[in-house]
């Protein structure tokens, strides 16, 4: 065993501990250091390999990469974390795709297994590159967020994938013939785009996690092609992490993978239009503030609307104020709230809400019936009782936060528009529900002002 092989082994060890320490907030930062150290060992180990002769372009590349990465990491606002993740997935996958391409064009014979591994690496690499760029565009709102659907879309997409797979097999069987290879790359990129055009905003958490998995598997295939165990291990860790997160996300919506990728949830959006207006009770900030300060227990339920309105800091002020007055305030976090797994937790943590106040769905639902006020900020489908009561509803069976069990329900909302699934929400019309119409940030700000001024 030479020195670099030993360093690779140590790197794999530190990657595994990085994930292990990620399990709890108290050890998570140690996990990041472990991951960084592992990566350092891997890079140093590679640089000292005797195959590496020419350092000039490597050093320039590393410096340029660090120069781009550093400002991204330090200046990116926390609300843009889903976009950053998407663009970063795209970078990683692109690197892997390019390496595969260069390996493929290297002269000389190679075993069929290596070519097959390269084909997998290149397919997943280019597919993830374009898919992540599309996801970035949708999250950044450069591209329309609504799903784009057309006739025979699934057959068309699968057809593209099948042709690509056919070319891949042909390339493995005919090592000397690289003619179709550019077509292979084009099809992989096209499939990545086609995969995302039909994905709507609320499915983003699942899709981002799935793309994470693909980029890991692409590194893994590179490991097989280069006979490098460290790449296989790191790629497999990443691949399984992405997969398990997307399974958790699917489960939280009671949908299958196939349904997320091929279902076209957003098509239902038209069905809700044109229903007759039903009466709702609305309340002013003064009334709402009065009820909140008389409550003993308050559960705040954030959704993507909170992120859009940037209301998290005002909500933390509300939390502080109510807590000071002896009200027990907690946050109920639905697994798919927001645009990526754990999105709400990061935003609230940024606003200095202590993490023991962020409660998972299973744990808070049992307390919901004993809660005085459920305050819903920018969430809709994840509190829609239709998921439990109406078997015909598109979201039937989806686990929800049982906000309707609270004694009073308050919903901050801009207007009466339906949520992502395009279905009406019974919760709005219940007798104990108060609609608080307005922008989330300014409404919470006026709540804070009311509560603060009344009792000081």
């Amino acid at each position, binding site marked *: 065993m030479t020195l670099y092989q030993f360093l690779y082994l140590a790197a794999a060890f530190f990657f595994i501990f990085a994930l292990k320490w990620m399990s709890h907030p108290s050890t998570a930062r140690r996990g990041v250091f472990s991951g960084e150290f592992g990566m350092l060992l891997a890079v140093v180990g590679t*640089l000292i390999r005797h195959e*590496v002769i020419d350092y000039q372009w490597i050093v320039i*590349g590393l410096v340029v*990469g660090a120069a781009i*990465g550093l400002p991204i990491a330090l200046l990116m606002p926390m609300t843009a*974390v889903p976009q950053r993740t998407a663009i970063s997935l795209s*970078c990683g996958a692109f690197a892997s795709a390019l390496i595969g391409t260069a390996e493929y064009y290297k002269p000389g014979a190679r075993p069929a297994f290596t070519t097959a591994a390269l084909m997998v690496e290149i397919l997943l690499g280019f597919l993830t590159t374009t898919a992540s760029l599309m996801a970035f565009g949708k999250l950044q709102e450069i591209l329309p967020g609504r799903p784009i659907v057309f006739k025979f879309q699934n057959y068309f997409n699968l057809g593209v994938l099948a042709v690509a797979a056919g070319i891949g097999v042909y390339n493995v069987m005919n090592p000397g013939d690289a003619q179709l290879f550019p077509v292979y790359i084009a099809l992989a990129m096209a499939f990545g785009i086609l995969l995302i055009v039909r994905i709507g905003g609320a499915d983003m958490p699942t899709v981002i996690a799935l793309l994470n998995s693909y980029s890991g598997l692409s590194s893994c295939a590179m490991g097989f092609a280069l006979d490098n165990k460290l790449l296989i291990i790191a790629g497999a860790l990443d691949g399984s992490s992405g*997969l398990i997160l997307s399974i958790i996300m699917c489960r939280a919506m009671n949908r299958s993978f196939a349904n997320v990728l091929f279902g076209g949830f957003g098509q239902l959006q038209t069905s809700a239009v044109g229903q007759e207006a039903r009466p709702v009770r609305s309340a002013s900030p003064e009334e709402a503030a009065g009820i909140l300060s008389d409550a003993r227990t308050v559960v705040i339920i954030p959704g993507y609307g909170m992120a859009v309105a940037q209301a998290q800091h005002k909500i933390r002020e509300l939390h502080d104020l109510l807590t000071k007055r002896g009200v027990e305030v907690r946050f109920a976090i639905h*697994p798919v709230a927001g645009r990526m797994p*754990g999105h709400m937790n990061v935003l609230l943590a940024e606003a200095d809400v202590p993490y023991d106040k962020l409660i998972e769905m299973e744990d808070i639902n049992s307390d919901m019936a004993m809660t005085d006020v459920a305050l819903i900020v920018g969430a809709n489908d994840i509190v829609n009782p239709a998921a439990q009561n109406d078997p015909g509803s598109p979201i039937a069976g989806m686990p929800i936060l049982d906000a309707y069990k609270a004694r009073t329900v308050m919903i901050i909302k801009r207007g009466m528009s339906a949520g992502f699934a395009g279905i009406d929400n019974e919760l709005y019309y219940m007798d104990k529900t108060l609609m608080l119409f307005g922008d989330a940030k300014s409404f919470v700000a006026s709540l804070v002002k009311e509560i603060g001024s009344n009792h000081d």
Partner: protein
Amino acid sequence: MNYEFGFYVFMLAAFLGFELIRKVSPLLHTPLMSMTNAIASISVVGAILLTGAEGASTLSRVLGFIAVVSASTNLVSGYLITDRMLKMFKKPGQPKK
């Protein structure tokens, strides 16, 4: 090359990944994703081997160089932003800024 051995490594690592990730609190899913994403920038290893090889073709050098840049962008930004996120998670009772 021993493919069979590679598949054993893959299977065990994937299984270990599943077991470890299942234990991660949903609280930390966003930092977890950005860290596994940074770990996937291990492809920088392949990029270095490609770029630095003796007598590499121009194509290899160019593609390898772009790959080094994009993998190391991912590496640096991924780890740093993960740490930045984790710093924000305040322990209960920890004084606020």
